[in-house]
């Protein structure tokens, strides 16, 4: 769970850095402090490692990390790893969404469904996705299906919980208004409940997307021939700490890009929220 929390935090900080929460300062000076902080940290790191205060066996210098990155990028290994991990996240996450969103809407609208599935949600939610690794390896081997299954098991419950809650919270007055204007059950569903629940469902998907990355990485660390998790784990076995750091930075950047893309999709799907973004 700590990995999960760290993952969501790594997504939240750059959003903060982009200057959403102003008040005490302008956008420009926030950006300046952002850059200053990172540059200062890199400088400190360089001085500590190149100055001999820290052994390269303990922590490689920024320069070593950079040249390692250039090397694995040139061989194509880095890109293959990113693509493999991304593909697993995509399929596992998409399956989880396809399964959990419709089920969640049903549970939000219909108490018996909620009562029926509720206990499973309560039992599965506390289970970190890595605890599914032994069973999924027995059932599915160590191929793609197993990685996808880990992502699925790690995310569907979150998507479900968000979907149920946001479906339940659709303003009953709007449902009343729609019926008063002549809407049938089906129309109430399509015109009111789904768009009303959409912001909450999308928020849940965004959180789950970040979680799905931590799932795939832990699965790849345990047993995989490819992917960013395997890259890091193998690099550790070869005592190539520079490559470990390259992998970690790549994970950060990839999750960040995925999260920004999710944010763009979120805004495109909800044009009525546009006044909040200007």
């Amino acid at each position, binding site marked *: 769970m700590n990995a999960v929390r760290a993952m969501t935090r790594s997504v939240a900080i750059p959003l903060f850095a982009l200057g959403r929460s102003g008040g005490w300062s302008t956008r420009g000076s926030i950006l300046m402090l952002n850059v200053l902080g990172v540059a200062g940290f890199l400088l400190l790191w360089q001085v500590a490692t190149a100055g001999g205060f820290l052994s390269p066996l303990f922590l490689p210098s920024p320069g070593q990390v950079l040249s390692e990155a250039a090397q694995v990028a040139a061989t194509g290994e880095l890109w293959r790893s990113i693509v493999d991990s991304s593909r697993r996240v995509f399929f596992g996450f998409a399956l989880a969404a396809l399964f959990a969103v419709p089920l969640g809407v049903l549970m939000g609208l219909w108490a018996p469904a909620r009562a029926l599935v509720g206990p499973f949600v309560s039992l599965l939610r506390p289970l970190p996705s890595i605890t599914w690794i032994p069973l999924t390896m027995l059932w599915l081997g160590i191929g793609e299906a197993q990685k996808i299954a880990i992502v699925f098991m790690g995310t569907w419950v979150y998507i479900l919980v968000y979907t149920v809650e946001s479906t339940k919270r659709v303003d009953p007055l709007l449902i*009343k*208004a729609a*019926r*008063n*204007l*002549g809407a*049938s059950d089906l129309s109430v569903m399509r*015109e009111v409940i789904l768009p009303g629940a959409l912001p909450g469902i999308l928020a849940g998907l965004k959180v789950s997307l970040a979680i799905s990355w931590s799932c795939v990485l832990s699965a790849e660390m345990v047993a995989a021939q490819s992917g960013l998790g395997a890259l890091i784990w193998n690099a550790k076995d070869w005592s190539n700490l520079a490559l470990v750091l390259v992998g970690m930075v790549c994970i950060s950047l990839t999750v960040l890009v995925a999260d920004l893309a999710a944010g763009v999709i979120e805004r495109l799907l909800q044009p*009525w929220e546009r*006044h909040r973004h200007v």
Partner: protein
Amino acid sequence: MQAILAAEHVTKIYAVHAKETTAVRDVSLDIREGEFVCLLGTSGCGKSTMLNLFAGFTQPTNGRVLLRGQPITKIEPRCGMVFQSYALFPWKTVRQNVEFGPKMKGLPAARQRELADRYIAMVKLSGFENHYPAELSGGMQQRVTLARSLAADPEVLLMDEPFAALDAMTRQVMQEELLAIQEASGKTVVFITHNIDEAILLSHRIVVMAANPGRVTAVIENPLDRPRDLAAQATPAYASLKSRIWDLVVGDVRGAIAGRAGRA
């Protein structure tokens, strides 16, 4: 002439936390076609309950509520509600909100658009068709709600203190516009208010209600000529009507204040 909307000995009792509250007791009321009726009373007199019964949002404990002689047993689209809190769909533009009723009727898209254009123009919101509700002021949102209800073409328009949340000047303009729209369309309107001036300005008839339990204490024909405007307020007929209504409600208002003080 048969009433378009009627309440026959209606009693509504709500049970909240095992405690029963009589919202209205034995209310009988006939509303004629094309009539503008104001339900006037202090808070707790059951005027909103009456409107919810007419809309079919709730059912009477005793008695019957009838639309053209037929009991209202479920949410009734022929009695269109204009909500005090607007209840606009935030994810729909002004045009999509107004088109909602025609769309639910399955009218062709061109006809939906035509109706939306007409009613958006009627409430003077042309040019705002593609705005979302959150981008409009309260007064504009209230006008969208009115246009949305009108476009659905209900037989009766139920209005629940629609202008209560507006500032005094906007309210005055909205009242005159509503009066003009009602004159032009001939719609039957049941309008809730606790504002005597508003009731006199708008209504053909005023139904005065009192609280504890909610009941009708008087039904007053409004003798003022139509169309009315604010100038009507300067006439002696207006003054005498207003003081007559005030005499009817003052006891109830004082009672409500004393009751609140007693509870506090």
